[in-house]
């Protein structure tokens, strides 16, 4: 009985260490990830807590939690959040555009330009420039090839630059 208890405590200790390590490494990034993509502080908090609740359960199964796995959980949680908010794909895209507009960035032109990108290209752009992932990491996260990621990123960058160019030109002229 005592042996079982000690073993249980040891397992629990390992689980806590794994979880705390993953939490320390990922929490802030995950929270910012949700803040960029959802409508408010409380939603981001709730979704972040949900991610780590799932992570805690995975620790119980003895799984390690690298950053990309935690972000994989975060993506699924976000997707479920979107699903629970609206049901159809068209409405989801519409909401995403609206959400992006509601984020209150200082640069409304950038926001509008982002809304005009294809969703998959926009996501790669944001994962790269806002969340700081490399192409290889984005590839793992989205489960697409690295070359597809690079191609979409190239297209997104190019399109965003074109969308922002008239604005820059106008600003230059005004100066």
């Amino acid at each position, binding site marked *: 009985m005592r042996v079982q208890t000690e073993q249980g405590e040891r397992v629990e200790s390992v689980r806590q260490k794994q*979880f705390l390590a993953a939490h320390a490494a990922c*929490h802030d990034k995950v*929270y910012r990830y949700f*803040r960029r993509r959802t409508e408010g502080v409380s939603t981001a*908090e709730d979704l972040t807590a949900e991610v780590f609740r799932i992570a805690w359960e995975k620790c119980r199964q003895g799984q390690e939690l690298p950053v990309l796995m935690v972000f994989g959980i975060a993506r699924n949680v976000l997707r479920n959040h979107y699903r629970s908010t609206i049901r159809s794909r068209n409405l989801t895209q519409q909401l995403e555009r609206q959400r992006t507009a509601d984020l209150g960035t200082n640069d409304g032109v*950038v926001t509008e330009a982002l809304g005009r990108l294809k969703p998959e290209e926009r996501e790669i752009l944001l994962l790269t420039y806002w969340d700081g992932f490399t192409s290889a990491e984005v590839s793992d996260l989205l489960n697409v090839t690295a070359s597809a990621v690079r191609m979409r990123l190239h297209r997104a*960058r190019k399109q965003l*630059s074109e969308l922002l160019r008239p604005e820059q030109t106008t600003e230059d002229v005004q100066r």
Partner: protein
Amino acid sequence: MKRKETPGMDRLIAADPALKVTEGELARSRQKSLAVMDTDAEHITVGGSVTDFHQQPARRRVRLTAGIGLLAAAAAAVVAGVVVTSSMITPPADQAAPAVTQPDAAPQTGSPGGLPPVLTGSPTPTVEADIVTGRAGKLAVSTAEIDRLISDGIHARPDVLRVLKLEADKDGCIGNGFLFPTGTKVSDTGLVMPDGTVFSMGDVISFGGLDVDSREVGQCAEGRRLIYMEEVRAYSGEPFPE
């Protein structure tokens, strides 16, 4: 960085909504997300827990089967595994007549070889009991008692015998029944345990860890010798003696 050289990317980075995230926000979220460690509550989803649903669907079914089996075992105990203390007017010494086991050894040493496992670490001594069957019509079990037994963890030790309080329909006497392990077969002549061990009527067997606080036998005890669980004997399906 190379990616920042693309025109417009600096503006994209500057437009990051997360730049407005404060340390206070982060601290609050950290605290909230760490709170999951304070509980072992399992997240329940439609169809079972997240863990069960994604990782161990078979185990969930086994649990369900075990639960059904336990209920079946409880029912079997009500039907057949009955020992009524209040009906014991004959001195235990007259009733002992052990056919298989050694009655002297049982109370202190637990079950002899071939008998069901005895609860270890029990605060109560091992006791003896005779097997009796065929009294189903005389007894009814409290639903609440079964619920309590099951919720209290009978599922945790399905391999041992459990005592079950029963209420007699006649005279309101309170007796004790034994809840046998899942898979126990009951016949008119005795029991066959899941491991194949056979107990026949009249056999004296040893039980460990029984609740000996069974002195409240109601009006059945009036004018009769009070028999504690340590001295349990039972009749083999004979009518209540007058």
